[in-house]
Protein backbone atom coordinates (compact mmCIF):
# COMPACT_ATOMS: atom_id res chain seq x y z
CA UNK A 1 0.00 0.00 0.00
CA UNK A 2 1.18 3.50 -0.83
CA UNK A 3 2.51 5.58 2.07
CA UNK A 4 0.67 8.81 2.78
CA UNK A 5 1.76 12.27 3.87
CA UNK A 6 -1.14 13.91 5.75
CA UNK A 7 -1.52 17.51 6.87
CA UNK A 8 -1.49 18.07 10.64
CA UNK A 9 -3.03 21.52 10.08
CA UNK A 10 -5.86 23.22 8.24
CA UNK A 11 -5.07 26.20 6.03
CA UNK A 12 -3.63 26.92 2.59
CA UNK A 13 -1.12 24.40 1.24
CA UNK A 14 1.99 25.55 -0.63
CA UNK A 15 4.45 23.31 -2.44
CA UNK A 16 7.17 25.99 -2.75
CA UNK A 17 9.12 27.89 -0.10
CA UNK A 18 8.44 31.11 -2.09
CA UNK A 19 6.57 31.84 -5.35
CA UNK A 20 9.82 32.27 -7.34
CA UNK A 21 11.48 29.11 -6.01
CA UNK A 22 11.22 25.47 -7.11
CA UNK A 23 8.93 23.07 -5.19
CA UNK A 24 10.27 21.41 -2.04
CA UNK A 25 9.70 18.07 -3.76
CA UNK A 26 9.11 17.49 -7.49
CA UNK A 27 6.36 15.12 -8.62
CA UNK A 28 7.93 11.68 -8.86
CA UNK A 29 10.80 12.72 -6.56
CA UNK A 30 11.85 11.04 -3.34
CA UNK A 31 12.08 12.22 0.29
CA UNK A 32 14.07 11.31 3.40
CA UNK A 33 12.30 10.94 6.73
CA UNK A 34 12.03 14.42 8.26
CA UNK A 35 12.15 16.26 4.92
CA UNK A 36 9.99 19.32 4.37
CA UNK A 37 7.44 18.65 1.63
CA UNK A 38 5.36 21.84 1.80
CA UNK A 39 4.01 24.70 3.88
CA UNK A 40 0.63 25.34 5.45
CA UNK A 41 -0.47 28.92 6.05
CA UNK A 42 -2.83 29.35 8.98
CA UNK A 43 -3.40 32.03 11.66
CA UNK A 44 -1.09 34.45 9.84
CA UNK A 45 1.95 32.16 9.89
CA UNK A 46 3.53 29.42 7.79
CA UNK A 47 4.21 25.92 9.12
CA UNK A 48 6.33 23.19 7.54
CA UNK A 49 4.81 19.84 6.62
CA UNK A 50 7.30 17.07 7.32
CA UNK A 51 7.46 13.59 5.76
CA UNK A 52 7.46 11.19 8.74
CA UNK A 53 9.06 8.41 6.72
CA UNK A 54 11.23 8.14 3.62
CA UNK A 55 9.61 7.43 0.27
CA UNK A 56 10.05 7.43 -3.49
CA UNK A 57 7.86 8.41 -6.45
CA UNK A 58 6.07 11.14 -4.47
CA UNK A 59 2.68 11.93 -6.02
CA UNK A 60 0.96 15.09 -4.77
CA UNK A 61 -2.79 14.84 -4.29
CA UNK A 62 -3.16 18.43 -3.04
CA UNK A 63 -2.35 21.23 -5.48
CA UNK A 64 -0.37 24.35 -4.65
CA UNK A 65 -2.62 26.89 -2.82
CA UNK A 66 -5.35 24.30 -2.15
CA UNK A 67 -7.48 24.95 0.94
CA UNK A 68 -6.96 21.93 3.23
CA UNK A 69 -8.35 20.58 6.49
CA UNK A 70 -6.66 18.61 9.29
CA UNK A 71 -5.71 15.08 8.31
CA UNK A 72 -6.16 15.37 4.53
CA UNK A 73 -3.77 13.39 2.36
CA UNK A 74 -1.35 15.79 0.67
CA UNK A 75 0.76 13.22 -1.16
CA UNK A 76 1.22 9.51 -1.68
CA UNK A 77 4.53 7.73 -2.22
CA UNK A 78 6.10 4.27 -2.41
Amino acid at each position, binding site marked *: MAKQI*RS*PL*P*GIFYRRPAPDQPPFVEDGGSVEAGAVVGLVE*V*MKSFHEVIAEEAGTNVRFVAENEDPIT*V*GVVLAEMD
Partner: protein
Amino acid sequence: MALKVLKPGLLTTVQDLGRPGYFHLGIPMGGAMDRMALRAANLLVGNDEGAAALEAVFVGPELEFTADGTIAVTGGEIPVKIDGEEQPCWTALAVKAGQKLSFGFLTSGARIYIAISGGIDTPPHLGSRSTYAIGALGGVEGRAVAAGDELPVGTSEKAVAPGTSVPEEMRRKPGTPTELRVLPGLYWHRITDAAQNGFFEDEWKVAPEADRMGYRFKGGRPLEFIDREQPFGAGSDPSNIVDSCYPYGSIQVPGGTEPIVLHRDAVSGGGYFMIGTVISADMDLIGQLQPHMPVRFVPVDMDGALAARAERRTAMDRIRKELAGE
Protein backbone atom coordinates in the same frame (compact mmCIF):
# COMPACT_ATOMS: atom_id res chain seq x y z
CA MET B 1 2.62 17.34 40.48
CA ALA B 2 3.58 18.94 37.21
CA LEU B 3 2.95 18.56 33.52
CA LYS B 4 6.09 18.39 31.41
CA VAL B 5 5.75 19.74 27.89
CA LEU B 6 7.59 17.47 25.45
CA LYS B 7 6.15 19.04 22.29
CA PRO B 8 3.97 22.14 22.44
CA GLY B 9 1.77 21.53 19.37
CA LEU B 10 0.93 24.53 17.19
CA LEU B 11 -0.25 27.03 19.77
CA THR B 12 -1.12 25.63 23.18
CA THR B 13 -2.02 28.05 25.95
CA VAL B 14 -3.16 27.97 29.57
CA GLN B 15 -6.78 29.16 29.68
CA ASP B 16 -9.51 29.44 32.29
CA LEU B 17 -12.79 31.36 32.00
CA GLY B 18 -10.92 34.64 31.50
CA ARG B 19 -10.54 38.04 33.19
CA PRO B 20 -13.68 40.11 32.61
CA GLY B 21 -13.67 43.65 33.96
CA TYR B 22 -10.69 45.22 32.17
CA PHE B 23 -11.95 45.51 28.59
CA HIS B 24 -12.50 49.27 29.04
CA LEU B 25 -8.73 49.48 29.66
CA GLY B 26 -7.99 47.55 26.48
CA ILE B 27 -7.32 44.24 28.24
CA PRO B 28 -9.56 41.58 26.70
CA MET B 29 -11.57 39.03 28.64
CA GLY B 30 -9.42 36.21 27.28
CA GLY B 31 -10.15 32.67 28.43
CA ALA B 32 -11.24 29.53 26.61
CA MET B 33 -12.67 30.02 23.10
CA ASP B 34 -15.10 27.15 23.87
CA ARG B 35 -16.15 27.79 27.45
CA MET B 36 -18.58 24.90 27.67
CA ALA B 37 -15.85 22.45 26.66
CA LEU B 38 -13.52 23.90 29.31
CA ARG B 39 -16.21 23.61 32.00
CA ALA B 40 -16.95 20.01 31.00
CA ALA B 41 -13.23 19.08 31.01
CA ASN B 42 -12.84 20.47 34.53
CA LEU B 43 -15.96 18.69 35.83
CA LEU B 44 -14.65 15.40 34.40
CA VAL B 45 -11.51 15.64 36.56
CA GLY B 46 -13.21 16.96 39.73
CA ASN B 47 -12.06 20.59 39.39
CA ASP B 48 -14.00 23.81 39.75
CA GLU B 49 -15.46 24.62 36.33
CA GLY B 50 -13.26 27.68 36.05
CA ALA B 51 -9.92 25.98 36.78
CA ALA B 52 -7.13 26.52 34.27
CA ALA B 53 -6.53 23.90 31.58
CA LEU B 54 -4.64 23.75 28.29
CA GLU B 55 -6.27 24.94 25.08
CA ALA B 56 -4.62 23.50 21.96
CA VAL B 57 -5.61 24.61 18.48
CA PHE B 58 -5.63 22.09 15.55
CA VAL B 59 -2.67 20.07 16.91
CA GLY B 60 -2.39 18.40 20.31
CA PRO B 61 0.77 18.76 22.43
CA GLU B 62 2.86 15.91 23.87
CA LEU B 63 2.93 15.93 27.66
CA GLU B 64 4.40 13.81 30.44
CA PHE B 65 2.90 13.46 33.93
CA THR B 66 5.14 13.66 36.99
CA ALA B 67 2.52 12.18 39.35
CA ASP B 68 -0.65 10.09 39.22
CA GLY B 69 -3.87 11.96 38.44
CA THR B 70 -6.96 12.20 36.29
CA ILE B 71 -7.20 13.98 32.95
CA ALA B 72 -9.94 14.68 30.40
CA VAL B 73 -9.85 16.01 26.84
CA THR B 74 -12.92 17.82 25.50
CA GLY B 75 -13.79 20.25 22.70
CA GLY B 76 -12.98 18.90 19.25
CA GLU B 77 -12.95 15.15 18.67
CA ILE B 78 -9.40 13.82 18.58
CA PRO B 79 -7.73 10.46 19.21
CA VAL B 80 -6.22 10.72 22.72
CA LYS B 81 -3.22 8.47 23.35
CA ILE B 82 -1.74 7.55 26.72
CA ASP B 83 1.62 5.83 26.19
CA GLY B 84 0.48 5.31 22.59
CA GLU B 85 -2.74 3.52 23.53
CA GLU B 86 -5.89 5.19 22.22
CA GLN B 87 -8.40 6.49 24.77
CA PRO B 88 -11.76 8.24 24.36
CA CYS B 89 -12.16 12.02 24.57
CA TRP B 90 -14.82 13.68 26.81
CA THR B 91 -13.97 11.00 29.41
CA ALA B 92 -12.17 10.93 32.79
CA LEU B 93 -8.89 9.03 32.27
CA ALA B 94 -6.55 7.86 35.05
CA VAL B 95 -2.88 8.59 34.37
CA LYS B 96 0.27 7.49 36.21
CA ALA B 97 3.53 9.27 36.88
CA GLY B 98 5.85 8.91 33.87
CA GLN B 99 3.06 8.27 31.37
CA LYS B 100 2.94 10.32 28.19
CA LEU B 101 -0.06 11.95 26.55
CA SER B 102 -0.13 12.48 22.78
CA PHE B 103 -2.75 12.97 20.09
CA GLY B 104 -3.72 11.83 16.60
CA PHE B 105 -5.27 14.04 13.91
CA LEU B 106 -8.28 16.12 14.92
CA THR B 107 -11.43 14.58 13.43
CA SER B 108 -13.88 17.40 14.20
CA GLY B 109 -13.79 20.87 15.74
CA ALA B 110 -10.71 23.08 16.02
CA ARG B 111 -9.71 23.31 19.69
CA ILE B 112 -9.21 20.78 22.45
CA TYR B 113 -9.16 21.34 26.21
CA ILE B 114 -6.89 19.22 28.38
CA ALA B 115 -7.88 19.38 32.04
CA ILE B 116 -5.93 17.75 34.86
CA SER B 117 -7.11 17.04 38.41
CA GLY B 118 -6.01 19.97 40.58
CA GLY B 119 -5.94 22.38 37.62
CA ILE B 120 -2.94 24.12 36.12
CA ASP B 121 -1.50 26.34 38.82
CA THR B 122 0.49 29.03 37.02
CA PRO B 123 0.27 32.40 38.81
CA PRO B 124 -2.97 34.35 38.20
CA HIS B 125 -2.75 37.85 36.72
CA LEU B 126 -5.67 40.27 37.14
CA GLY B 127 -7.74 37.42 38.54
CA SER B 128 -7.10 34.85 35.80
CA ARG B 129 -4.50 32.36 34.60
CA SER B 130 -5.59 32.82 30.97
CA THR B 131 -2.80 33.50 28.50
CA TYR B 132 -3.14 36.73 26.51
CA ALA B 133 -0.04 36.29 24.37
CA ILE B 134 -0.13 39.66 22.58
CA GLY B 135 -0.20 41.45 25.93
CA ALA B 136 2.29 38.97 27.48
CA LEU B 137 -0.19 38.40 30.30
CA GLY B 138 -1.07 35.22 32.24
CA GLY B 139 -0.22 31.61 31.41
CA VAL B 140 3.47 30.68 31.36
CA GLU B 141 5.33 34.02 31.38
CA GLY B 142 2.60 35.47 29.19
CA ARG B 143 3.25 33.13 26.26
CA ALA B 144 2.14 29.84 24.71
CA VAL B 145 3.66 26.74 26.28
CA ALA B 146 7.03 25.59 24.90
CA ALA B 147 8.99 22.32 24.92
CA GLY B 148 10.76 21.96 28.26
CA ASP B 149 8.15 23.86 30.29
CA GLU B 150 7.00 22.24 33.53
CA LEU B 151 3.50 23.42 34.30
CA PRO B 152 2.65 23.37 38.01
CA VAL B 153 -0.55 21.51 38.92
CA GLY B 154 -2.69 22.26 41.99
CA THR B 155 -4.00 19.85 44.59
CA SER B 156 -6.98 17.74 43.63
CA GLU B 157 -10.00 18.25 45.92
CA LYS B 158 -12.41 15.72 44.52
CA ALA B 159 -12.04 12.35 42.80
CA VAL B 160 -14.02 11.39 39.69
CA ALA B 161 -14.31 7.72 38.71
CA PRO B 162 -12.24 6.95 35.59
CA GLY B 163 -14.52 6.22 32.65
CA THR B 164 -17.03 8.93 33.64
CA SER B 165 -18.02 10.53 30.34
CA VAL B 166 -20.10 13.32 28.80
CA PRO B 167 -22.62 11.50 26.55
CA GLU B 168 -22.21 12.16 22.82
CA GLU B 169 -25.56 13.97 22.49
CA MET B 170 -24.54 16.53 25.12
CA ARG B 171 -21.44 17.61 23.18
CA ARG B 172 -21.90 20.56 20.86
CA LYS B 173 -20.38 20.34 17.39
CA PRO B 174 -20.25 22.69 14.42
CA GLY B 175 -22.76 21.93 11.63
CA THR B 176 -22.51 21.99 7.83
CA PRO B 177 -22.93 24.88 7.54
CA THR B 178 -22.63 26.12 11.10
CA GLU B 179 -25.37 28.63 11.87
CA LEU B 180 -24.27 31.66 13.87
CA ARG B 181 -27.11 33.77 15.22
CA VAL B 182 -26.66 37.53 14.91
CA LEU B 183 -28.42 40.44 16.60
CA PRO B 184 -28.22 43.41 14.18
CA GLY B 185 -26.57 46.38 15.87
CA LEU B 186 -26.30 50.15 16.13
CA TYR B 187 -24.86 50.59 12.63
CA TRP B 188 -27.26 48.25 10.81
CA HIS B 189 -28.88 51.28 9.10
CA ARG B 190 -25.59 52.10 7.37
CA ILE B 191 -25.99 49.37 4.73
CA THR B 192 -28.66 49.01 2.04
CA ASP B 193 -31.63 46.62 2.33
CA ALA B 194 -30.04 44.46 -0.37
CA ALA B 195 -26.80 44.28 1.63
CA GLN B 196 -28.71 43.44 4.84
CA ASN B 197 -30.43 40.54 3.09
CA GLY B 198 -27.29 39.43 1.27
CA PHE B 199 -25.33 39.15 4.50
CA PHE B 200 -27.78 36.54 5.82
CA GLU B 201 -28.39 34.82 2.45
CA ASP B 202 -24.77 34.18 1.49
CA GLU B 203 -22.64 31.26 2.61
CA TRP B 204 -19.37 32.35 4.20
CA LYS B 205 -16.20 30.38 4.84
CA VAL B 206 -13.75 30.70 7.73
CA ALA B 207 -10.57 32.42 6.53
CA PRO B 208 -7.17 30.91 7.43
CA GLU B 209 -6.32 34.09 9.41
CA ALA B 210 -8.96 33.26 12.07
CA ASP B 211 -7.46 33.22 15.58
CA ARG B 212 -8.20 34.00 19.24
CA MET B 213 -8.63 37.71 18.48
CA GLY B 214 -11.13 37.33 15.71
CA TYR B 215 -12.60 35.01 13.14
CA ARG B 216 -12.56 36.35 9.58
CA PHE B 217 -15.02 35.06 6.98
CA LYS B 218 -14.81 35.13 3.17
CA GLY B 219 -16.99 34.26 0.23
CA GLY B 220 -20.13 36.40 0.65
CA ARG B 221 -20.98 39.49 -1.41
CA PRO B 222 -19.39 42.82 -0.40
CA LEU B 223 -21.66 45.16 1.57
CA GLU B 224 -23.17 48.20 -0.07
CA PHE B 225 -23.29 51.27 2.17
CA ILE B 226 -25.84 54.06 2.16
CA ASP B 227 -24.18 57.27 0.95
CA ARG B 228 -23.36 59.85 3.56
CA GLU B 229 -20.84 62.56 4.26
CA GLN B 230 -18.44 60.88 6.71
CA PRO B 231 -18.70 62.56 10.14
CA PHE B 232 -15.76 64.41 11.65
CA GLY B 233 -13.37 61.87 13.20
CA ALA B 234 -14.39 58.95 11.00
CA GLY B 235 -12.08 57.67 8.26
CA SER B 236 -12.95 58.20 4.61
CA ASP B 237 -14.04 54.61 3.81
CA PRO B 238 -17.80 54.08 4.21
CA SER B 239 -17.05 51.17 6.59
CA ASN B 240 -15.38 53.66 8.98
CA ILE B 241 -17.14 55.24 11.95
CA VAL B 242 -16.14 57.63 14.68
CA ASP B 243 -14.26 55.33 17.10
CA SER B 244 -16.49 53.18 19.24
CA CYS B 245 -16.36 50.30 21.72
CA TYR B 246 -16.22 46.83 20.19
CA PRO B 247 -18.27 44.24 22.10
CA TYR B 248 -17.22 40.57 22.36
CA GLY B 249 -18.92 38.90 19.38
CA SER B 250 -19.27 42.11 17.37
CA ILE B 251 -18.88 41.76 13.61
CA GLN B 252 -16.79 44.43 11.93
CA VAL B 253 -16.49 44.52 8.15
CA PRO B 254 -13.41 46.54 7.12
CA GLY B 255 -13.92 47.88 3.59
CA GLY B 256 -17.29 46.11 3.52
CA THR B 257 -15.76 42.86 2.27
CA GLU B 258 -14.77 40.29 4.92
CA PRO B 259 -16.68 40.17 8.24
CA ILE B 260 -14.56 39.61 11.36
CA VAL B 261 -16.21 38.32 14.54
CA LEU B 262 -14.22 39.53 17.54
CA HIS B 263 -13.47 36.76 20.04
CA ARG B 264 -11.85 36.30 23.47
CA ASP B 265 -8.54 38.15 22.83
CA ALA B 266 -10.08 40.98 20.78
CA VAL B 267 -9.17 44.64 20.63
CA SER B 268 -11.69 46.69 22.65
CA GLY B 269 -12.42 49.58 20.32
CA GLY B 270 -11.75 51.22 16.98
CA GLY B 271 -13.19 52.84 13.89
CA TYR B 272 -14.89 50.06 11.93
CA PHE B 273 -18.65 49.89 11.68
CA MET B 274 -20.23 46.76 13.18
CA ILE B 275 -23.06 45.02 11.39
CA GLY B 276 -24.22 43.38 14.63
CA THR B 277 -23.12 40.88 17.27
CA VAL B 278 -22.98 37.10 17.27
CA ILE B 279 -25.04 36.11 20.30
CA SER B 280 -23.20 34.76 23.35
CA ALA B 281 -24.89 31.35 22.96
CA ASP B 282 -23.02 30.78 19.67
CA MET B 283 -19.56 32.11 20.53
CA ASP B 284 -18.31 28.69 21.74
CA LEU B 285 -19.16 27.22 18.33
CA ILE B 286 -16.87 29.72 16.59
CA GLY B 287 -13.98 28.41 18.68
CA GLN B 288 -14.54 25.00 17.07
CA LEU B 289 -14.44 26.20 13.45
CA GLN B 290 -11.51 25.23 11.23
CA PRO B 291 -10.49 27.36 8.25
CA HIS B 292 -12.65 26.79 5.13
CA MET B 293 -15.67 25.55 7.14
CA PRO B 294 -18.98 26.94 5.86
CA VAL B 295 -21.02 29.33 7.98
CA ARG B 296 -24.40 31.05 7.65
CA PHE B 297 -25.36 34.08 9.69
CA VAL B 298 -28.95 33.90 10.95
CA PRO B 299 -30.82 36.99 12.25
CA VAL B 300 -32.37 36.93 15.74
CA ASP B 301 -34.01 39.58 17.90
CA MET B 302 -33.22 40.23 21.58
CA ASP B 303 -35.89 37.78 22.79
CA GLY B 304 -34.43 35.10 20.54
CA ALA B 305 -30.92 35.84 21.82
CA LEU B 306 -32.01 35.61 25.46
CA ALA B 307 -33.93 32.37 24.84
CA ALA B 308 -30.82 30.90 23.19
CA ARG B 309 -28.71 31.93 26.19
CA ALA B 310 -31.19 30.24 28.56
CA GLU B 311 -31.06 27.12 26.37
CA ARG B 312 -27.25 27.00 26.67
CA ARG B 313 -27.52 27.32 30.46
CA THR B 314 -29.94 24.40 30.53
CA ALA B 315 -27.61 22.32 28.36
CA MET B 316 -24.70 23.04 30.74
CA ASP B 317 -26.90 22.13 33.72
CA ARG B 318 -27.67 18.79 32.08
CA ILE B 319 -23.93 18.07 31.84
CA ARG B 320 -23.45 19.07 35.51
CA LYS B 321 -26.27 16.74 36.61
CA GLU B 322 -25.06 13.90 34.41
CA LEU B 323 -21.54 14.11 35.86
CA ALA B 324 -22.84 14.49 39.42
CA GLY B 325 -24.70 11.21 38.85
CA GLU B 326 -28.14 12.81 39.34
